[in-house]
């Protein structure tokens, strides 16, 4: 439990004490009691809401949170596997990504990126509970799991800017610069750096691999 989460619990407990005192002891609603109740109805719950929301939002960026939907368990297991060589797993071993690797790679980095990411997360939950995923095994659901839009190279470029000499030395980077900028070619494609979750699209992966070779 983080300090933020603990603070939320503390203020919730203080608010609950004030409200329970009113319900159990039923003191008269005089001037002094009104002030005490203002703490129990106003300040303490407000602080509890702020801290619990901050804690909740932080929790939603963790890999374990994404894995709470059972259809994501294969993705989570692969990303957590120290032996896996998938793009996702290699990034998850980097401390910058760590246990937040799903979020760091899949967050929208636009101006309203945070809100858009959270709204899309809500859509995921809605689809999970209403889209028939609950009755499916992770293996059955694997082929149905899709991104809402093609993966944006901008996300890769949060770290790999493409401006350093080492990046520009690679002939494929130079020749595909326009397509990479326009998102016509994905960094995480079979012929380039490989799929982030190769097990999720074996047929496409095989096609692209055979095409490249």
């Amino acid at each position, binding site marked *: 439990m983080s300090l933020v*989460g603990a603070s*939320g*619990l503390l203020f*919730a407990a203080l*608010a*609950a004490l004030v*409200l*329970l005192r*009113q*319900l159990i002891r039923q003191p008269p*609603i005089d001037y002094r009691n*009104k002030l005490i*109740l*203002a703490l*129990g*109805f*106003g300040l303490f*719950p407000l602080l*509890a*809401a702020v801290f*619990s*929301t901050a*804690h*909740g939002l932080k*929790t*939603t960026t963790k890999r374990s*949170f994404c894995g*709470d*939907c059972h259809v994501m368990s294969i993705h989570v297991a692969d990303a957590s596997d120290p032996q896996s060589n998938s793009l996702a797993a290699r990034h998850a071993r980097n401390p910058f990504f760590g246990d937040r690797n799903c979020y760091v790679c899949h967050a929208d980095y636009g101006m309203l990126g945070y809100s858009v990411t959270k709204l899309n997360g*809500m859509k995921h*939950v809605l689809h*999970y509970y209403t889209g028939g995923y609950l009755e499916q095994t992770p293996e059955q659901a694997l082929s149905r799991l899709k991104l809402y839009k093609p993966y944006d190279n901008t996300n890769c470029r949060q770290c790999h800017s493409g401006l350093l000499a080492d990046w520009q030395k690679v002939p494929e980077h130079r020749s595909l610069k326009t397509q990479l900028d326009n998102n016509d070619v994905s960094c995480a494609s079979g012929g380039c750096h490989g799929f982030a979750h190769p097990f999720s699209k074996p047929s496409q992966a095989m096609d692209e691999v055979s095409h490249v070779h």
Partner: protein
Amino acid sequence: MSTDPTQSSESDRPPAPKRQSVPVRLRRRLTSWGVHGGAIIGLVALAIMVLGTLYPKPLLVIASMSLGHALGILAGLCYLAAILNDIGAKKN
């Protein structure tokens, strides 16, 4: 002519408590209901927020940030209405 000392005159009696009119009593009762109802709703809201913090599963976190907040606001509004009602009752 002597008077009976056990019988007190009208002027000696303590004044009867002033009987409140029905609207004023109703308003005072509404204040009490508002505060108690708000407290119960507030406790439910706090419980949902605490659950979302202790067990951060998708549905609980969503409930904490939506239902928990909505009920918390409703509880605050109940308290506010009760206090405004109380002030109004005192003015009358």
